[in-house]
Every structure is written in structure tokens, then in C-alpha cells.
């Protein structure tokens, strides 16, 4: 079939404050308009239905990442930092760094961290619940990953407060050069210098993810000049994502007490609960690709060199794929959700994120019978992340 559909257009700004505050309406409009929608404001092609988002994600041959997974096209524009060897690379360059990181962050490699992370979560939760009320964003969603992840990578204690602002900027930088980018820009050289210093061999404790990346360079699995950039990928992609992923699952349970009850009755649902929260909130909302040649998606031809904006968040709530998509429901099988991407670039840190979530939720489930919001939750705007500023709550303890 080579029938060509008229290309619907939309002039909404997906990176404007309204859409970032609540993207649901934009997502529904884009999904209903057609398989592909032209976004006039940026001259890019949007896909928002599950089927087409998933197809674009796995098709690295036609939809490349090396020209940037943000709005900026690296064929014509200079990126703000040296491109990532994973996220912003295509095969064959992508192969070796990916293989190394998949091994270091794979489920079997993480077994050694499990017990320790569960203990840290338990201790943190005990401390937080001693207060009658707390803000779950800083107290749990930020505090837990910041306790375990930098240690697991093996960076020093000094300067860890730079991690969140650096990640926040990196995820903003995938969008247009709007206020969110400009406001943070003056701090970027300082943040980048700090992050780059943490990636050096000398800066990394023995036996952490970072040291293992350097060991891979010593074995020749990657080159020595690739090692610091692979470490940088962890420091960029591994912190803010899990913070907002954990915030998403805490928000989900605070607003769905029946589901929390269900989780407590059936702890085996813990892993699925986190993936369901990742589906429901999609902490990473969007990524771009660039068409390598004229490529058809659902009856529309994307011209070679054109940018495609994939709405992971919209795909994860596409009623064509999910029943009652707007409900957070532990009885659903969230398998196949695209919040971690799919295919060649699928999140290499997903097992790390899931282990963090399992540790934190398990510690909470041991003690908390019910969460209640004590004030209005507040979003944090970011061009890529569905993020949180504040989740004031109280926890009833068993």
C-alpha cells in the first residue's frame, strides 16, 4: 500500500509551560490527528501512537540517533558537549560501549548491590517516617538515589549536589533553546567541568561501575578515550531519571490508596508496580530521531534528514494499546511500556532503576499502611522529563 495521507499539522509548543504542566490534552490531540503530525513550530514530525512510537524506536536503520536525540540536528549544529557514545551514537560506534555497559549494569552484575541497597532504603525510610509529614521529593525520591547511585558508580563525596542540576540541564538541552535552557546556561561550564573530572580513572573508587568501565578499557573492549564518556553517560542519565521515576511511583500510591493496599498484600507486584508507574507517568517523555532516508510511517513519508519527535508518554497511554490507560492499576501487565525506550537504545540502566525502586518500595511497604497528600503536588518543568518539585505527604505507619 502506498496510499498517502494528508499530513495533519499542529502548532502547539510541546515544550511550552502549558504542555509541560500537563501534556495529556496535547498527547490525545496528536494521537487522534493521525500516525504522524507535523509540528509547525519546530518543523518536526511527531509520532504519539504506541504502534508508531515503538516502530520508530526499534528501527535504528531508518531513524538514527547520531544526529542527536533532541531537537538540534548535529548534522548542522554543534552539540553543547561531546555527543554521548551510547544515546547519541549509531552502530557500529554504539556496539562496544553498549556491550560494556550492558554487562556492568545487567541484573546478574547488580546482585551484589541488592542487600546493601535494601538496607540503605530501610534505614532512610525509618528516618523519614520519624517525621509526621515530609516532602517525598527531596526526602525519598532524591535522597535514596543520591545515597546509593553515586556510591555505586564510585565517585567521591565532594560536589554531589552538582548531579541533579547537571542532569536537569542535559535533559532540558534535548528541547528548544527556551527559558528552561537559558536560565541554567550560566552554570553549565562549572557543572560540566565537575562532571568531567568525576569520569577520570583516578576519581573513581575500585569496584564501582566507573572502575569497571575503566577495566573494560584496559581489556581493550572499549578504547581508553571512550571510558570517561561512558562514565559520563551514567552520571547524566542515571540520577534525575530515577528521582522522577521514584517520585512518580510515590505519587501514584499517594493518590491510589487501594493500590498501595494491594501491593502490601502481594509484594510480588513490586517490580510491576514500578513499571506501571513508569508507564503511567513516563518520567522520560520524549526523544527525537533523524530519518536517514525518506521513510514511511503509517502512510506518511518522513523526508531524509527530517527530525521525528517520539512521544513516549503519549504511547504509554494510547487507548489503542492500553485499557483504561489513565488509571494506575497493578492488575495490568505493564510489560511492553516504552518508558525505558525499546530496541537497540533501550535504557541500559533499567535494571538499576528497578532495583532502586524495589528497595525503596519494599522498605515502605514494611511500615506504611497509607500515604496521604497534605498539600498540592507541584511539578518541575523540564523539556524532556516529567518531573516533580514537591510531593508533601503524611504516611500512616503500621
Amino acid at each position, binding site marked *: 500500500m502506498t496510499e498517502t495521507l494528508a499530513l495533519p499539522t499542529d502548532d502547539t509548543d510541546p515544550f511550552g509551560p502549558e504542555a509541560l504542566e500537563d501534556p495529556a490534552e496535547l498527547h490525545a490531540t496528536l494521537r487522534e490527528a493521525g500516525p504522524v503530525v507535523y509540528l509547525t513550530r519546530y518543523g518536526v514530525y511527531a509520532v504519539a501512537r504506541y504502534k508508531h512510537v515503538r516502530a520508530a524506536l526499534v528501527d535504528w536503520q531508518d531513524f538514527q540517533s547520531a544526529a542527536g536525540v533532541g531537537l538540534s540536528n548535529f548534522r548542522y549544529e554543534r552539540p553543547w558537549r561531546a555527543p554521548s557514545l551510547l544515546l547519541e551514537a549509531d*552502530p557500529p560506534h554504539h556496539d562496544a560501549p553498549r556491550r560494556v555497559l550492558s554487562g556492568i549494569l545487567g541484573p546478574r552484575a547488580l546482585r551484589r548491590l541488592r542487600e546493601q541497597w535494601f538496607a540503605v532504603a530501610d534505614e532512610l525510610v525509618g528516618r523519614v517516617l520519624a517525621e509526621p509529614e515530609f516532602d517525598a521529593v527531596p526526602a525519598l525520591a532524591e535522597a535514596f538515589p543520591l545515597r546509593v547511585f553515586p556510591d555505586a558508580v564510585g565517585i567521591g563525596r565532594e560536589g554531589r549536589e552538582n548531579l541533579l542540576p547537571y542532569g536537569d540541564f542535559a535533559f532540558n538541552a534535548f528541547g528548544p533553546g527556551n527559558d528552561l535552557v537559558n536560565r541554567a546556561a550560566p552554570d553549565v561550564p562549572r557543572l560540566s567541568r565537575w562532571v568531567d573530572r568525576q569520569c577520570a580513572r583516578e576519581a573513581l573508587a575500585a569496584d564501582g561501575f566507573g572502575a569497571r568501565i575503566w577495566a573494560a578499557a584496559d581489556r581493550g573492549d572499549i578504547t581508553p578515550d571512550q571510558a570517561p564518556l561512558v562514565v559520563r553517560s551514567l552520571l547524566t542519565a542515571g540520577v534525575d531519571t530515577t528521582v522522577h521515576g521514584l517520585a512518580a511511583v510515590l505519587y501514584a500510591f499517594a493518590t491510589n490508596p487501594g493500590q498501595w493496599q494491594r501491593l502490601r498484600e502481594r509484594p510480588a507486584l513490586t517490580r510491576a508496580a514500578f513499571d506501571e508507574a513508569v508507564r503511567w507517568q513516563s518520567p522520560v517523555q520524549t526523544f527525537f530521531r533523524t530519518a536517514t532516508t525518506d521513510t514511511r510511517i503509517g502512510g506518511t513519508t518522513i523526508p531524509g534528514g527530517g527530525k521525528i519527535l517520539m512521544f513516549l508518554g503519549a504511547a504509554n497511554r494510547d487507548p489503542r494499546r492500553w485499557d483504561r490507560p489513565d488509571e494506575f492499576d497493578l492488575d495490568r501487565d505493564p510489560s511492553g511500556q516504552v518508558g525505558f525506550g525499546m530496541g537497540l537504545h533501550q535504557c541500559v540502566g533499567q535494571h538499576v532503576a528497578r532495583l532502586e525502586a524495589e528497595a525503596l518500595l519494599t522498605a515502605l511497604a514494611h511500615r506504611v499502611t497509607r500515604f496521604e497528600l497534605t498539600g498540592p503536588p507541584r511539578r518541575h518543568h523540564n523539556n524532556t522529563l516529567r518531573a516533580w518539585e514537591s510531593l508533601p505527604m503524611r504516611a500512616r505507619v503500621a
Partner: protein
Amino acid sequence: MSANVATLTVAAKDEIAEGVVALTLADPGGARLPDWTPGAHIDVVLPNGMTRQFSLCGDRWDTRVYRIGVLREPHGRGGSAYVHDVLRPGDLVGVGGPRNNFPLVPSAGYLFIAGGIGITPLLPMIHQADLLGAEWNLLYGGRRRASMAFRERLAGYGGRVHLRPEDESGLLDVPAWLGTPRPGVRVYCCGPPPLLAAVQAAFRSWPAHALRTERFTAGAQDAPAREEPFDVELRRSGGTVTVGPDRSVLDAVRRAGADVLSSCRQGTCGTCETTVLDGDPDHRDSILTDHERAANDCMFPCVSRSRTDRLVLDL
């Protein structure tokens, strides 16, 4: 043949050299096949139940087909004879993987050494090295010119390819090629055990890690994959389900109420990893190394199955 996800059709069978056929495998519905990298192999479950491993030698930019080269092995156990004499276009085969124990690492230069059918994993590596603008050479030995597969494909690379048929130029002069270590050069060798031994011997003066090898033999193979249904016991929740050939273990245990999370359903992402308490899984994933497979302590139920009548899972 099982109607699970990894059943492919023989789309073409071509004799490409004396005693060598190339098979083209495709999804019966034309679906995209799982990704792979140069050096990867697949497990092929033949209609007679034998399982054999073959290196992928096609083009990873072509998402619809896998290509493998199969040498007739007169002293093999019958798998290659079956492929040569019985298997026909249109037949279905089971496929596990792809898996890669022989990955290409980044380097400014490569020396590829192939013995006979050992050329197959090196072909995509050569393509890739060329694409990256690396300095590379191929030393390719075989019995007779006519028995050396993929000569036409290699002809396009000109002077970088050094064909050495034994009846014209004798055994490969490995010491001459490996005499002095060259910094920045990695050596990839695939062929029969005597060739690997010669390469290893000549390699002593080179830095560690500069050599990567894969042995090509018709050697020991696993027990045949089973077609009969098997039972899966869910130890923690206490049920047992029977898994027939047209359903995955993942679907079966989920239907029995186990909360197994999955994502890729291709044995690549690792999400569905499940602890095995008893029984021998028939591993079809792209994740575990041979060593990890042999431990039989975990499996990926989205693609892997059972060799034994009963599997006991920690679910």
C-alpha cells in the same frame, strides 16, 4: 515445529562454494528480526531436532533476513548433512539468539585470519572495519580455491584480501604474518583448532587482549531441543502449568498468575530474568554467556524453554 516467536522460514538455499551452502532465513510473516552485531551466532533447531550454531554473515542493516554459511562436514554428527541434503526453501527452523561471544572491539587496525568456513563471522567484521575506515587485512586459507566461500564478496576489497588456497600456496604462514607485534592492531581469528593453535603460538610476543579467537568445529552439541510439552512448577505460588510448543513459558506462567515482568520479548533486554530451581532450560536468549547458560540457575522465559520434562521456577 514450534509456533513460538523464534521460528523462521528458509527463504533461500544457495550453493556458494564446493561443499558450502548459504541459507537465508526470514520471519514467515516478514517481521523485523532481532538485532545482532558482527561475530554473533544463532542456534538453529533443525526440523530433525538437532541444534547447531552458525555465525551470522549477512548485513545487519537488512532487518528482514539472517544469512548463514554451512559447510558439509563428512565427520560431523549429521546436522550439516541434513542442511545440505534435506533442508529446502520453505522449511521452518527454530532459532535462538543471536548471541555474540566474539565481538569486534574498536581499533585503528585489524588483522583477520580465517580458516575455511571460519570466514563467516569475519565477513560482517570486515564490512564494519571498512565502514569505519580502519586499516585491515584478511588472511584467508582453505583447501582449494573452489572450496573457499564468499570469494566474490571479498573480491571488491582488492589488495586487503589475501587468499591462500592450500593446494596453491601451502599452509598459512602464520609466523610471517604475526612475527612482530604491531601496536594498535587487533587480531581476529576463526577456524579449525590447528589454525588457532598456530596463531596462539605465533602470538606470544603480542600484548595480551590483542588476540580474539573463535574455534570453528562441528564439536559437541547440546541434547536435541524438545518438541513435546513440558511442565513448569511455580515453587512459591504453588501451581504447575503445562507448556505446549505454541506458547512461551512467559505467557504460560503469567496465565497461571505469576507476576513476571517483561519488555522486549526477544531475549535481549533482561527484564524477565527468572530464577531456575530445578530442571534444564533450553536457553534461546541473547544475554547469557556459555558459562552462565551452563549454570542453569536462571532463564529468560520470553524465549527460553525446557530440555527436561519439568522446570521448577522461583515464582
